[in-house]
C-alpha cells in the first residue's frame, strides 16, 4: 500500500468526521471595515469606562465597569475571535466554560458573603 493511499484513507476518515465544513468554515471574508467598526466600538467603550470611573457612582462603579468589560469581551470574542462564524460546538464549549466559571464564583461567595 502506498503512502498516497494511506493518507487518502485518513482524509476519508477525517472527512467523515467533518464533512465539507472546509468550504464554509473559512468562507467568511469579513470586510476590513467591519473590523474597524468593532475597534471603534471598543475604544469608545474604553472611553466610557474611564469617564464613568471619574464620576463617583458608589457601588454602581464596579457593576458598570464589569458590564462594559463584558460587552467588550463579547465584541472581541464574537468578531475578532470569529465566534460568530464558528461551529455550534465551539459556542457550546465557550458557554460551558463560562457557566462553570460562574458557579465557582457563586459557590465561593456563598461562603464569603454569609460569614
Amino acid at each position, binding site marked *: 500500500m502506498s*503512502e*498516497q493511499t*494511506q*493518507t487518502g484513507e*485518513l*482524509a476519508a476518515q*477525517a*472527512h467523515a*468526521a*467533518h464533512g465539507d*465544513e*472546509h468550504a464554509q*468554515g*473559512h468562507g467568511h*471574508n*469579513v*470586510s*476590513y471595515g467591519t*473590523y*474597524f467598526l*468593532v*475597534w471603534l466600538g*471598543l*475604544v469608545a467603550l*474604553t472611553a466610557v*469606562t*474611564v469617564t464613568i*470611573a471619574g464620576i463617583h457612582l458608589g457601588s454602581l*462603579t*464596579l457593576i458598570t*465597569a*464589569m458590564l*462594559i*468589560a463584558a460587552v*467588550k*469581551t463579547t465584541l*472581541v*470574542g464574537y*468578531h*475578532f*475571535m*470569529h465566534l460568530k462564524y*464558528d*461551529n455550534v*460546538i*465551539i459556542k457550546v*464549549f*465557550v458557554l460551558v*466554560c463560562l457557566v462553570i*466559571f460562574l458557579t*465557582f*464564583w457563586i459557590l*465561593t*461567595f456563598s461562603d*464569603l*458573603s454569609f460569614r
Partner: protein
Amino acid sequence: MTEHSEVMHQGESHGGAHVHRDDEGSKMAMWLFLFTELLLFGGLFLLYGAYRFEYADGFKVAAADMNSFIGAVNTIILLTSSLSVALSIAAMQRSQKKLALGMLWFTILCGIAFLINKYFEWSHEIHNGIYPGGPALENMSNGEVLYFGLYYVMTGLHGLHVIIGLIFISVIMVFISRDKITSTNFQKLENAGLYWHLVDVIWIFLFPLFYLLH
C-alpha cells in the same frame, strides 16, 4: 515510525499539499487551551473578587495610587493590536501576504509598546518601595498589601502571556514568509490570533479592576 505519524497527523503536520489537515480540530484544541488559560486567570480573578469584598476600603485606597492614564493607553494599545491581528487574518484570506505580514509587525510593535509601558509602571512602583516585602508595604493596611500582591501577580502573569503571544506571532510570521501559511491554510495564524485576543480580553478586565476603581 515517527515519519509515519507525521504523515498521518493533520493537526500537527507540516502542511504539505497532499496531507489532510483538520483545521476544525486544531481550532477546537486552541479553544480548549484558551479555556485553561481563562481558568488559570479565573482563579486569580476569584481571589481578587474575594479580597476586594473583604477589604473594600484598602483596595480603594491602593487603586487610587495607580496611574489610570498609563492603564488607559495600554488598553488602547492592546485593542489596536487585536484589530491588527484580525486584519492580518482577513488579509491572509484575500492572499494579501504583504499586508498580513505588515499587520503582524504592527501587532508586535504594539505588544512591545505595551511591555515598555508596563516596565515603566512597575519600576515606578518598585522605586516607591511598593513590592512584595518592600518598605512601603510596612505601613499599609492588609487590604492594600493584598491589592499590590495581586497586582503584581496578575499583571505579571498577563505580561508573561504578552511575551508568549509575541513569540507565537513571530513564529507565525516566519511561516507566512515561507508560504507555509496561505489563503487556504491559515489555521495556525488564526490560532495565534485567538491567543492574542485572549490576552487582550484578560486585559479588558484587569484594566478597570486595577486602575479605575477608586
